[in-house]
């Protein structure tokens, strides 16, 4: 059994929390005491049915206002898969929390209100989906019950979205018309939309597969921690602990240590003190090299045959989360896996208009803005371009004065 991580995105009141509540409720994932708590809270929909959104709105301020402020993670399981849902806020004010949820998901469910069609938040979220290179986009046209389950409404929205997707270069998009409130096409196929020939949402989620990552891309190994017991019987033990990005890290392979550029060979791969000949994508392992090399946290081990870039400057897309605008004169920190370096962002190349995707020159990068910048680092960073190897083309920006994560970065160009 595998895990599917997905996020629901959409504007306020598009019914994200209701959709999740419905998924949980109709798959019998809500337990009696939780249901009891909802009933006690006594929040009802207009038609008197229990408000399922309350299942995910876990904060007092959220329940008071009936909105989602921060990401809630929900878990459920069917015979086919385990699911982790990130229920993210729709408010533009909380875009950073939406990005938090999206960055850890494989699939994004974009909710569109059937009455409103593609609006600014749809565009913003789709743009973020592109920036974060989400593997798949599912557009759920919700509130179909409020447009008499009319096929032409669905078709029009689908056509509009396809246009947007082409503009953005978004691929792998699917569409389902639903009513989260009434439960149409969520867990069961809706009889009221017999014109729709596709699967209900749950069926779709159970079956959806992701395009395989390029075989040739190889692996990267950022060192998190050096295991060095220094006991009598393990006097020479020196293992580099980390999690493999990509696959194919094997014993006997010639490697390069970055940034030093020293060559060595993989001597041993351990998981839980057992030896393996190969480490797979996402495994947390300990690697031993055949020679005594000076390696510490923040270094990256790569295949000598397929190394990363190792540069001090690059162009990146940036998504800004802080109330203070990006200051091109200030020093920031860039965290790329286990490595943290001082950086400057001396130049904003342009800012995107999320509605039109046009590029605006000479603008500041402010809260919730997305733009392209030039970054200069104090030390080499062993990165890949986001397009080639997404997991190694990402970083966060920290403001050293507040220690807050102020921006997300995807590396686009050297």
């Amino acid at each position: 059994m595998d895990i599917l991580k997905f996020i629901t995105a959409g504007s306020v009141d598009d019914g994200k929390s209701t959709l999740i509540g419905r998924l949980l409720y109709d798959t019998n994932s809500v337990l009696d005491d939780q249901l009891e708590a909802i009933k006690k809270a006594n929040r009802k929909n207009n038609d008197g049915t229990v408000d399922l959104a309350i299942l995910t709105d876990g904060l007092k301020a959220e329940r008071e206002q009936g909105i989602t402020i921060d990401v809630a993670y929900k878990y459920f399981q069917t015979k086919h898969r385990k699911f982790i849902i990130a229920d993210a806020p729709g408010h533009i004010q909380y875009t950073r929390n939406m990005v938090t949820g999206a960055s850890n998901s494989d699939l994004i469910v974009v909710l569109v209100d059937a009455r409103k069609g593609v609006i600014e938040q749809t565009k913003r979220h789709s743009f973020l989906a592109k920036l974060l290179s989400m593997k798949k986009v599912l557009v759920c046209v919700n509130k179909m019950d409020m447009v008499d389950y009319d096929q032409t409404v669905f078709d029009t929205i689908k056509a509009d979205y396809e246009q947007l997707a082409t503009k953005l270069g978004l691929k792998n998009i699917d569409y389902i018309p639903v009513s989260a409130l009434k439960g149409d096409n969520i867990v069961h196929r809706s009889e009221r939309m017999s014109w729709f020939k596709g699967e209900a949402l749950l069926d779709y989620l159970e079956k959806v597969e992701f395009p395989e990552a390029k075989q040739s891309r190889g692996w990267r190994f950022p060192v998190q921690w050096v295991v060095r017991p220094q006991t009598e019987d393990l006097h020479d033990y020196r293992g580099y602990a980390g999690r493999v990005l990509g696959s194919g890290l094997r014993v006997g392979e010639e490697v390069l240590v970055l940034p030093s550029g020293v060559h060595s060979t993989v001597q041993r791969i351990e998981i839980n003190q057992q030896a393996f000949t190969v480490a797979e994508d996402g495994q947390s392992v300990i690697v031993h090299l055949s020679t005594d090399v000076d390696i510490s946290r923040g270094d990256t081990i790569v295949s000598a045959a397929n190394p990363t870039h190792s540069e001090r400057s690059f162009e990146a897309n940036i998504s800004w989360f802080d109330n203070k605008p990006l200051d091109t004169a200030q020093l920031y920190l860039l965290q790329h896996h286990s490595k943290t370096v001082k950086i400057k962002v001396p130049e904003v190349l342009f800012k995107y208009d999320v509605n039109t995707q046009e590029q605006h020159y000479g603008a500041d990068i402010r809260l919730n803005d997305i733009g392209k910048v030039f970054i200069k680092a104090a030390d080499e960073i062993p990165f890949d371009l986001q397009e080639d190897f997404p997991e190694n083309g990402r970083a966060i920006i920290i403001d050293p004065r507040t220690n807050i994560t102020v921006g997300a970065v995807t590396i686009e160009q050297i």
Partner: protein
Amino acid sequence: MDYLDHLEAEAIYILREVAGQFENPALLFSGGKDSITLVHLAKKAFRPGKFPFPLVHIDTGHNFPETISFRDQLVAELGEQLIVGYVQDSIDQGKAIEQTGKNASRNALQTVTLLDTIEQYGFDACIGGARRDEEKARAKERIFSVRDEFGQWDPKRQRPELWNILNGKINKGENVRVFPISNWTELDVWNYIKRENIALPSIYFSHQRDVVLRNGQWMAAAPFLQIDETDTVDHKSVRFRTVGDMTCTAAVDSEAVELDDIIEEIRSSTISERGARIDDKVSEAAMEERKKQGYF
């Protein structure tokens, strides 16, 4: 990778980030199944090396004796350091005031002792076994969750947490609570315990015990539970699904003596794990309020 492999690899990654990013971390150990799982994961992350942190137990003094003996045995086997913070000390120092009445519990007082212990030892990160599936305020928690110098959680000011890049930078006096098994469900923990053959305190398995019915739930008849003439003490076959201290953890009727029985019991249960925690039933926002105060 199977889903348990995935969850394990993620948890190990998080533990190693703690080791790499903090000067003086600690692993909060309650003797319950989640923190026992954390200890097992720490072995996988750091062995054959030593743990880069001590285990810290906040002892309410109202623990199940089985939990304490299990804790001491585990620590002896591990050869790692254990630090115990006693709620009784906080009471004696006048920092915490013991509740009175029939439903008195020291559960809330743990926060005082925890924050004092953090300050005394200068911990900058505390690893905990909380899971997002436990409770709706927990579902909102980041993996690296920053607490201010008063130990408070501010849900409106949580940092963005992008991809798997965890920002552990903090100001002096602040503290990060780290949750490596955030993405695990109760059933995942049990399936993992079974797969890895992890030992647990006996109270998780069905046993005969004197219990008292309180507010519709079976409480262990402990010496510090106020039992009067309106109570009847029953002798029943029960087990504990979650282990806090004896005054806030209810037992469930159970004949489950093996892990397979427990897994089956949870799979078919219609009550959540926290349904047996008195402390969560106080109000809709009980957990959120406690977390804001500094509860882990």
